[in-house]
């Protein structure tokens, strides 16, 4: 990575819960995140509206050239 990987604190709200995943809206319209259950640590039974927090950094683009493998996977999905 080119930029410093210093993490910063973010907060969000659980907006959707399924058996396998939770969706999170970041506060201040800073984005949306859907993660598998296993990536969520909780001391409490899950409910919509619960606040969550995490540390993360900025997302950085690795290369100017799109990866053909993922393009073909995406095309396949569109055909379906």
């Amino acid at each position: 990575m080119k930029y410093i990987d210093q993490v910063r604190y973010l907060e969000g709200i659980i907006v959707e819960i399924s058996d396998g995943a939770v969706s999170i809206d970041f506060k201040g319209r800073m984005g949306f995140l859907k993660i598998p259950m296993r990536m969520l640590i909780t001391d409490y039974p899950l409910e919509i509206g619960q606040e969550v927090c995490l540390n993360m950094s900025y997302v950085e683009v690795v290369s100017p050239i799109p990866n053909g493998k993922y393009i073909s996977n995406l095309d396949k999905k569109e055909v379906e």
Partner: protein
Amino acid sequence: MSLTIEQVEKFKKEVAVLCCRLKEGSIIDESHLEDPTILPELVDSGLLTIPKNCARIGQVIGAKLLKTLDALTPISSDVVEGIKEMDLSNEGITEDEIFDLDQKAVLKYNMKFGDVIKASDLENPMNFEKMEDSLLIKLSEKVLTRGEVIGKKLNKDTVALTPILPEMIEGYKATEKLETTPMDTNNGSILKIKIAEGKGIDIEIPMGGYIGHASTIINKEKMAEKPVEIPPKEIRRLTKKYFEIHNVIFGKETKIEGKTLYIRENIGEDALKVDKLVKEIKVDIIGPDRYKEYSETIMDVQPIATKEEGDKLGTGTTRVLDGVIMIVTGTDENGVQIGEFGSSEGILEENVMWGRPGAPDKGEILIKTEVVIKEHTNMERPGPLAAHKATDFITSEIREALKKLDEKLVSREEEFIQLRRPGKKKIVIVKEIMGQGAMHDNLILPIEPVGVIGGKPNVDLGNLPIVLSPLEILDGSIHALTCIGPASKECSRHYFREPLIIEALKDEEIDLCGVILVGSPQINSEKFYVSERVGMTVEAMDVDGAVVTTEGFGNNHIDFASHIEQIGMRDISVVGASFCAVQGALVVGNKYMTNMIDLNKTEEGIENEVLACNTLTGEDGLRILAMLKAIMNGEEVLAPERKWNPEVKENNLRLIGKN
């Protein structure tokens, strides 16, 4: 954070840094010193610079500070009075530096039971003359030489300046003559034999008649460390009979003729009916010539196997098709992959780590189902299960054909014998399986190997620990609905060929008593609930050692750490194995997590899209068992480097290879 007295002893050779402001004239004690384990972090971030003349913790305790210093200031030797002399020369001593091997061995430090004697633990022979003069030591003929004791283990706590005698060393082979007093015969009726010391002594005396001049034969060879060998006891055995398949084609009915498997053309239509969530099912036969084609994400890889009449999982005979396997793939009606996160869709050839225990082997024919389930059910519990049920409908029909095959067609057999080895170190394998819900679930103990019917989901069983025999695991007692990460997930076939269990069964130095399966629930309180039960189960087993393995990474590392704690706090040696590296680094830890095996196989240390890339392999199994045996024998595992370094694994493998 300040140190405790115990830590001072442990860290005595580490650099001394103040953890709080200390005034001139104060006498330094453990409460003033910073924990040295956090210092590298501070040095890296530029908050701290350690000067060359920085004193060590062992040197400054009890010394007087000559000037007031702030917190987080290293104590250099010029700002303290009364610094203790400390020999730092033995840091990093290597085997090449061991000298005077024929000189007598005298301990320099207090040592404990089980400690391995190193050259640095012994007093320099050049001091012996002075010490003998001042009556500190007495070197008799019996005292062992340095060459004889280095690398040996003490069998009792021993204080400094003790010359080492043979009886202090574990399993020392007596080379000198044992002192046995001559036999005494009293009136020809009582035979008295007095032996001063020794064990495992064979005495043969002709019975009957006059004993007065009977001869005594002491077998010196057997003097040392040979306890009576109790032969291993067979508990059960499992035979896998393989039937070779070279060709899979669609036909009018499902049957096997010679080496050809026919699959009923319209089987998909009936498979649809098993669950109302299944909307469409496509069955495809993929031979090696089609490995280059696109495939939906692989949910599971399953063997096609069936039990012979009357046999239960884990015992008797299992018939297995060789050269063909089942692959479960699927999407929901909107085209969203069932394993939505980190899915492995793409060109099959590139997205499979061929030959891993849980993956297909190169050259195998794949019967691939593409199950389409109701929209939005891909992340709900019934969705993935429905895809598995529909696939198993097809496998079941093949199983029926396999049951009818003539015994003469068996191409090879594999025999697994579960032996208990009394007298060997008893170990248990704890396998943490996913239990957070949706596809994070496993059907335990179905009737057929990797079947569905009869299997109980571990989520419904409360994720509590369940004890299985190693052979039950190898016979397909886990139908894995498999978690999300393709690279680290353990497919059903992984358990059918579980490499750690196979290695542990083969290992004659250990006594594998069973396998504990424990689910990983979502909420922390539930995690600790099941973890405490793991502790109690392992306690009741009275084992010497345990291995805890987990699948992938995420919140399952919280219970993984807790299982290790629960076992470790019961004074049982424990090794943990998980994918960690960079991306899966542990989120929690405890003082028992010192013996860890990383299962990563990628160069970057991340979870990639290649199926089974980061799963446990036979080589990992050997590393795990080597580490467990080492710690059960009292050896210490070195602390890891601060950042993940793939070299550690390579070095360990080299060490195992040497032994």
